[in-house]
């Protein structure tokens, strides 16, 4: 079985710089932040908020590719979003779920408590049943590469469930500090303002 790190390295190698990546809390954000140096990263989307945030971003910027870097426990908390995404069907949204089938295993030396995907739940089938036709499960880096290329070239929402190892024994070296949520907000919003010509951070009117 493939590790989270192997897949994130593959993703870092193939994803264009202008694709907006919204990553969930935990090792998705932690590893992605160590592996990449991109302004187009929005980190720290908490439980249940990663795919909804990427979806809102995709609706607001329909001509920009957006990728949700989500995880099984995070997505399951707000699973209804898959039905919402299917009905709106943004042409520019890809949802990539790192499915390690347990809670908290990413921080431990042994697997945490099981998520529903450790049992009978199959997230790609759930996505299909919600109405996301382009939904699949991948098992390795080659599969990820093929599906990401397909998603970025295609139209309509794509859902990719990556079945990964239960534990993150394989970790990137920690070489830098990850921006905190406020810091990252200013970086990311500033980047969007500059590249999309929209106003996000307000008038900047002073006072006193």
């Amino acid at each position, binding site marked *: 079985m493939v590790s989270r790190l192997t897949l994130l390295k593959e993703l870092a190698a193939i994803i264009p710089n202008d694709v907006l990546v*919204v990553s969930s809390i935990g090792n998705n954000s932690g590893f992605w932040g160590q592996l990449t140096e991109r302004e187009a990263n*929005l980190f*720290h*989307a*908490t*439980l*249940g*908020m*990663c*795919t*909804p*945030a*990427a*979806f*809102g*971003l*995709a*609706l*607001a*910027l329909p001509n*920009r590719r957006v990728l949700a870097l989500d995880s099984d426990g995070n997505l399951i908390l*707000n699973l*209804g*979003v898959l*039905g*919402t995404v299917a009905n*709106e069907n943004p042409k520019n949204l890809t949802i990539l779920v790192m499915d390690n089938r347990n809670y908290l295993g990413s921080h431990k030396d042994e697997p945490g408590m099981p998520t529903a995907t450790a049992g009978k739940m199959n997230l790609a089938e759930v996505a299909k049943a919600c109405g996301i036709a382009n939904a699949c499960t991948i098992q390795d880096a080659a599969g990820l590469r093929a599906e990401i290329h397909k998603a970025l070239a295609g139209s309509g929402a794509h859902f990719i469930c990556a079945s990964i190892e239960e534990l993150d024994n394989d970790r990137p070296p920690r070489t830098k500090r990850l921006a905190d*949520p*406020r810091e990252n*907000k200013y970086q*990311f*919003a500033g980047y*969007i*303002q500059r590249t*999309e010509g*929209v*106003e*996000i*951070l*307000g*008038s900047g*009117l002073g006072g006193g």
Partner: protein
Amino acid sequence: MKLEKAQLVVQGLKEAGVDFTAGVPDAQFIEVYKMLADDPDIRYVGTANEAEAVGVGFGAWFGGKKPALILATSGLLVATYHLARINILHEVPLLVVIPYRGDIGDPRWLGLYKKTTEPGLNAMDIPYRIVSRPGDIVRTIKECNESARAWLKCIAVILNEEALW
């Protein structure tokens, strides 16, 4: 809810520059949701729960939209974790519009929300204004949205029985 009062809410959102809304329909505010869903100038996204709506609004703000959440008092409870997170940790501004079920004077069995709505907003550090007169709806929505966007804070407008019904 009378149609003309629902129109005032939508007018307030439009004059405030709100162009993106999300939420879950509420029986007492259904006219507002229907108007938003039909309005060509404001994108309405109907979500499966109110926490999802917070996430969608959060993302839309980063895309340059001026989002508002339309939340029932019950829905505010569902949204609490995500609202607290984006308001206190990320400091991302969303306007939150709430029809105030359970305020004093409400004859229905909804007093629960008197205990949760204002204390909940205070706990999440979300400033709010309560609107009691229909004539104040438009101005209050505009003022709250303007401050939300300038302060990078969520701000709520609570419309009570006298204003709406």
